[in-house]
């Protein structure tokens, strides 16, 4: 019964941790917009945490610059299992307009497994909520797969 409670709850209480990997701040503002009264992601249980150790879902914005890559990987490794990685905006997926730059190490999927990509430059809050809801389902599945 206890196991079932945990499995049920994992899909209802996803806490976010946001990493800025060299983003232009456009996507970061959209992520904050998702949590404001207008879109209110808290009704689905989302909460922005300050420490990666509290998080379930890691949201990465920005094209992953050479400088930020080791920090991003280190922060992601501090998130306890089960965890989900969501990239936000076109930058971490493809590099966007920064593709091929000498200072960009992305895309992120070269280094870690990415669960959900939310496209757009910057992406709409509706798309972000959709992507995060998808990530929540994946999170619950991951929890079920754990022993």
């Amino acid at each position, binding site marked *: 019964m206890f196991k079932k409670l945990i*499995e049920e709850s994992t899909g*209802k209480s996803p806490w976010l941790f946001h990493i800025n990997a060299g983003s232009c701040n456009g996507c970061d503002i959209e992520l904050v917009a998702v949590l404001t009264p207008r879109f209110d992601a808290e*009704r689905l249980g989302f909460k922005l945490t300050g420490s990666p150790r509290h998080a379930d879902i890691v949201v990465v914005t920005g094209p992953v610059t050479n400088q930020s890559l080791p920090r991003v990987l280190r922060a992601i490794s501090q998130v*306890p299992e089960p965890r989900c990685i969501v990239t936000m905006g076109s930058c971490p997926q493809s590099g966007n307009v920064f593709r091929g730059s000498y200072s960009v190490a992305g895309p992120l999927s070269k280094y870690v497994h990415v669960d959900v990509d939310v496209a757009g430059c910057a992406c709409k809050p509706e798309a972000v909520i959709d992507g995060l809801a998808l990530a929540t389902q994946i999170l619950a599945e991951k929890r079920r797969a754990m022993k």
Partner: protein
Amino acid sequence: MSLVMDAIKYLVYILVFPGFLFCFLSGLLLCGIDRKIVARMQKRVGPPVLQPFYDFFKLCGKETIVPAAASRTTFLLAPLVGLAALVVIQLFIPVFNFSAFSGVADIIVILYLLLIPALSIIMGGAASGSPYAGVGLSREMVTIISVELPLVLVLLAVGKVVGNAMGTGLCFSLTQIVAWQAEHGSLIATPSMIVAAIAMLMVIPGETGNHPFDAAEAETEICEGMLAEYSGAPLGVYKLSHAVKMLTMTSLFVALFLGGIGGGIDRMLLSWGLTGGAAGVIAVLIGIVVLFVLCAIITIISISLIHAATARLRIEQIFKYYWTVVTGLAVISLVLAWYGM
């Protein structure tokens, strides 16, 4: 035989009511109501009322990471110490006519026990070896010092009013205070106690570390301070302790100022013609429901409304606020109580 019965009775007190299970359910429910009300005040839909339960069970199912710099035993045991202390406080707080444990000076015991959850979070934070925890625990200590003074003065004023009325000078037994109110009506009707109740309402959010007095756990600023390194079940226990502390402080308020409702319940049962053992059980059941409703109302007034309306204070502003405004109110109520008003 009676020894076995007593052992079973106390085990039920500790594990079910008013101990662990009651604290767990009603504490988390209060927390959920608080979050919902804050959301509604900000014109949001808000999380479901059961959200704290989901959070707690989810955290139980997460991996627990112990930092390399942490001292392992202290880091993992500190949250349990804090939760245990809160459950013990709840055993001392009477639910109107029912009290699990009572003593001649249980208010002083409660005052000491109220420090332990804060100390446990300081211990855990210090053991985690994180610089965020270092900043957080220094702020937590200042918050304790700020809140403790007006709280002690309020309890002193209440003790003086009841002690005067009973002719014993000072009364530090919560059970006697509630019993006296059941006979003579709630204390909140006396002038000095209105001031004390307002001071107590201001103490509650500081004691529980809620907005705007959460400089020690500022999540946007120092990553929840002492909790920065916690993950999984220990973090869940801290979240649970925070919720239970809301229940403890609000039910302490009910016991101190609204205890007269217990007499009302008794008279109501008498008018229905109920006496004896069955009436006692029904009185306790009604008491639990009434207590929870009152706790929810006080949570909304003293925690949710202030949370939705204010921004976080800096630590020296918290200190200044408590040692001037709230302590001032508490001193006024103490002076009024000393002159028998």
